[in-house]
């Protein structure tokens, strides 16, 4: 067997121990950037193994339990991460059970679900953990049999020696636990993988199909109360006064009170974004009683005026002013136009773009707009909390427990080790659950009412609360010379409240003269990461713009992109180009071939193509659109992905198909608007979601086969869907769509 040699990465160390009752447990710890090194180092001295958790538990009966470190929100990490462990441990997947780990970053790593990072960040450490345990088991067998360890082989959880001796991992686990953890490890090379790259079923599939209580909203304890928050009807407003007399008379209602989330001088971490600070809270015995009584609350609201927040995240402590105006989409559009005409911050410049545009034979200029989008996780925000003076237990759907814990500790004035965060399965995340405000709210409510509490947002609360995909705009300009060569490219993008521009992405590096600029407009409408932040707008705008430029140049859209990528590879312009031109071209070629692009047989479809690079991965789609009942319908999609080694192909295909469906839905329907600060959509009757009858008949997904370390998958296939849909629409309608959602309506799209 070929091996990759690896010295245990400096940032991790392994610790083995004997489970009570026998068996072995292997813990991996990181010198995590979220914890002080001191605290992590101290682990070696103060371990209480009875309560510790590691990644690998092997019981004497040969049962293997693997721990998933990262919270699960549908990206299937509970299956894919343990597969990586099991691969190097060399166990029979059938004998493996998987559990979600507790929140314990010192022992389980960063435990962050987001940025398409889970597989990337655990790829090496988890395989090392598996390989180390395997090596220790071999060593234990060698000692027991009095043979050299090198002669002991493993196969699916069984140790053997040529002499005929053999034992199960379970037999040797207790002995292995006292073997020193090896310093040098050998990892398998991809061609020897037995588990990784072979499709495995979702480890929770049977629990899902039988309705087991897996989600935050399902979490329940004896005596648990239900809390809801009545937030202001508009951004830029706050609570003035309230009268709860009628609500308190309703059955099952325990209390109504005001809670201040952050004290005035509170230093927020980067993901402590919250929309409203003075919370009108109603607490009762059951969901329905609280929902019903809530309607009887009488509240007066007033303009909040400008607010100052102190943010102490990365980039140092700073004061941020949040404007107090009641904002509207129509004024946003106007404002964006004004800002687009003003000078902006230069983000990248190559060559002499101004001169190139002056001397160009043809200049194409187009402006693209995208609205605020709501995440609309299927499971609305909620969290369980039981906080006492001594400790806190919180449980629920959360993408970044490690970012929430320090804030929670500060808010509750409890040391971090008195806070237990349990991560339930999440009914979707898409970035929304990286923001822990609802967890803090739940904890403060529990402390106030001195009881276990479940804070629940209704769908309306969830959709009108904020933390949206920002509103964006971008103006693209391209200069062609007399031979129709692209000689200059300019993008100027802005947004509320952030601009979308990734200045070093394609076509940067492929055009001699290049300029990227950005500007932003402050707003009180809160925003957050939304599946492939910024990219989800850029790919729509840039990829439909390139389509238009290709047409002006008289070139096939795929051939045109490939030409640019060839240039970026052979003679790259500038430095810091984010992408690998070969891999980028690779997905375009793959999707071209698989979709029979430009080949006969596809005449009934209006075809649109787009590609994009983000989260270190490459994605391309060909979208085949038809008219159905007078409406555009994406009947068929071909997708090509390069995300390196694919851990779990069937689940990865599911993820890409889901991203395509999500992209089509948001491109055609997704839209959140505001009037006088109030969000005009509140539930699925007026926020249109893509449905079964609108989903394509087929989405064929192809992965570039290579042996590169795995890169992101949850986000990268999403952004280019927008561009491909826009380009197919053009083919169908003969006109370009510049405003998301792409629809024909008398009024402006956003």
């Amino acid at each position: 067997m070929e091996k990759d040699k690896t010295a245990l990465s400096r940032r991790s160390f392994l610790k083995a121990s004997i489970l009570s009752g026998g068996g072995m447990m292997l813990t991996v710890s990181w010198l995590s950037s979220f914890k002080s090194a001191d605290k992590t180092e101290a682990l070696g001295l103060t371990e209480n193994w009875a309560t510790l958790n590691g990644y690998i538990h092997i019981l004497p009966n040969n049962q293997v339990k693997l721990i998933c470190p990262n919270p699960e929100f549908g990206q299937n990490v509970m299956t894919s991460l343990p597969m990586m462990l099991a691969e190097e441990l060399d166990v029979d997947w059938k004998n493996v059970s998987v559990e979600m780990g507790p929140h314990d970053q010192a022992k389980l790593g960063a435990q962050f679900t987001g940025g398409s990072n889970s597989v990337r960040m655990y790829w090496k450490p988890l395989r090392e953990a598996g390989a180390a345990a395997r090596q220790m088991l071999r060593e234990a067998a060698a000692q027991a049999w009095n043979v050299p360890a090198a002669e002991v082989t493993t196969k699916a959880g069984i140790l053997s020696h040529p002499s005929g001796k053999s034992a199960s991992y379970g037999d040797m686990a207790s002995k292995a636990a006292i073997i020193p953890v090896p310093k040098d490890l050998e990892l398998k090379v991809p061609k020897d993988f037995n588990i990784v790259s072979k499709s495995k079923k979702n480890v929770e599939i049977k629990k899902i199909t039988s309705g087991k209580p897996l989600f935050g909203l399902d979490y329940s304890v004896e005596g648990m109360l239900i809390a809801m928050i009545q937030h202001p009807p508009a951004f830029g407003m706050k609570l003035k006064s309230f009268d709860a007399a009628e609500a308190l008379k309703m059955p099952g209602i325990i209390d109504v009170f005001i809670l201040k989330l952050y004290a005035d001088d509170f230093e927020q971490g980067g993901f402590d974004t919250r929309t409203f600070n003075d919370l009108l809270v109603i607490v009762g015995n059951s969901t329905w009683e609280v929902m019903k009584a809530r309607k009887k609350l009488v509240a007066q609201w007033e303009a909040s005026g400008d607010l100052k927040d102190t943010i102490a995240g990365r980039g140092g402590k700073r004061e941020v002013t949040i404007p107090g105006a009641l904002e509207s989409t129509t004024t946003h559009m106007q404002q964006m136009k004004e800002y687009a005409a003003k000078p902006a911050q230069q983000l990248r410049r190559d060559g002499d773009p101004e001169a190139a545009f002056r001397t160009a034979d043809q200049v194409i200029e187009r402006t693209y707009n995208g609205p605020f989008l709501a995440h609309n996780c299927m499971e609305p925000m909620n969290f369980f909390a039981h906080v006492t003076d001594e400790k806190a237990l919180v449980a629920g759907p959360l993408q970044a427990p490690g970012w929430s814990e320090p804030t929670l500790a500060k808010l509750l004035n409890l040391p971090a080790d008195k806070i237990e965060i349990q991560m339930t399965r999440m009914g979707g995340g898409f970035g929304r659950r990286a923001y822990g405000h609802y967890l803090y709210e739940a904890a403060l409510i529990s402390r106030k009412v001195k009881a276990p509490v479940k804070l629940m947002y209704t769908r309306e609360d969830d959709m009108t609360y904020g933390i949206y995909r920002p509103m964006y705009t971008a103006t693209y300009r391209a200069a062609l010379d007399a031979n129709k060569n692209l000689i200059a490219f300019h993008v100027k993008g802005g947004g509320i409240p952030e601009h979308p521009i990734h200045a070093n992405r394609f076509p940067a590096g492929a055009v001699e003269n290049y300029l990227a600029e950005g500007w932003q407009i402050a707003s009180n409408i809160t925003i957050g990461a939304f599946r492939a932040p910024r990219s989800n707008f850029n790919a729509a705008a840039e990829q439909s713009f390139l389509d238009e430029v290709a047409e002006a140049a008289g070139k096939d859209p795929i051939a045109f992109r490939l030409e640019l990528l060839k240039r970026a590879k052979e003679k790259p312009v500038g430095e810091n180009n984010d992408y690998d031109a070969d891999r980028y071209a690779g997905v375009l070629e793959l999707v071209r071939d698989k979709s029979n692009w430009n080949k006969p047989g596809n005449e009934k479809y209006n075809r649109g193509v787009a590609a994009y690079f983000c989260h270190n991965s490459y994605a391309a789609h060909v979208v085949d659109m038809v008219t159905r009942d007078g409406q555009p319908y994406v009947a068929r999609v071909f997708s090509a992905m390069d995300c390196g080694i694919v851990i779990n192909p069937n689940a990865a295909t599911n993820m890409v198909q889901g991203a395509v469906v999500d992209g089509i839905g948001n491109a055609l329907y997704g839209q959140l608007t505001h009037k006088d600060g109030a969000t005009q959509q509140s539930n699925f009757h007026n926020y249109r979601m893509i449905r079964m009858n609108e989903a394509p008949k087929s989405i064929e997904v192809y992965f570039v086969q290579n042996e590169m370390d795995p890169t992101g998958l949850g986000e990268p296939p999403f952004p280019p869907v927008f561009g491909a849909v826009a380009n197919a629409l053009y083919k169908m309608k003969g006109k370009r769509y510049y405003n998301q959602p792409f629809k024909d309506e008398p009024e402006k799209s956003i």
Partner: protein
Amino acid sequence: MAKITLNINKKDYPLEADPQMPLLWAIRDLAGLKGTKYGCGMAQCGACVVHLDGAAIRSCVTQVSRAAGKKVVTIEGLSETNSHPVQKAWQEIDVPQCGYCHSGQMMSAAVLLREKPNPTDQDIDDAMAGNICRCGTYLRIREAIHTAAELQKKTGTKG
């Protein structure tokens, strides 16, 4: 408050409930069965679909009083051993991503398959358009319903 006995998954639950309470909350909060989900509370998403005397209904807009004397089946009672053709097909195709919408999806699919044992894609689109999947697993749901139809033929199990 009124005394209401709900028969859920062949078991009687004597409950004290506001007769206006949506069946969804009676099932989740009072009977303690968490498989049925809340997604919108206004008959838009299908996360809360259960069977009431065999019909697929949205429990978030059905008053609990309407269920008295009738048979309620939730995802927990779709089969005793997680083996209804729909459950088996969902397992085989590995349909879910986050999984949150799927008890509602499966309950809708089970009724479709009882009424139309050989559903076409069009039948599936029509019957399932009321169930939102935010993660976009629609293609697999479609495939799984066809698989379930095959399984149903083989085993004769009815939804």
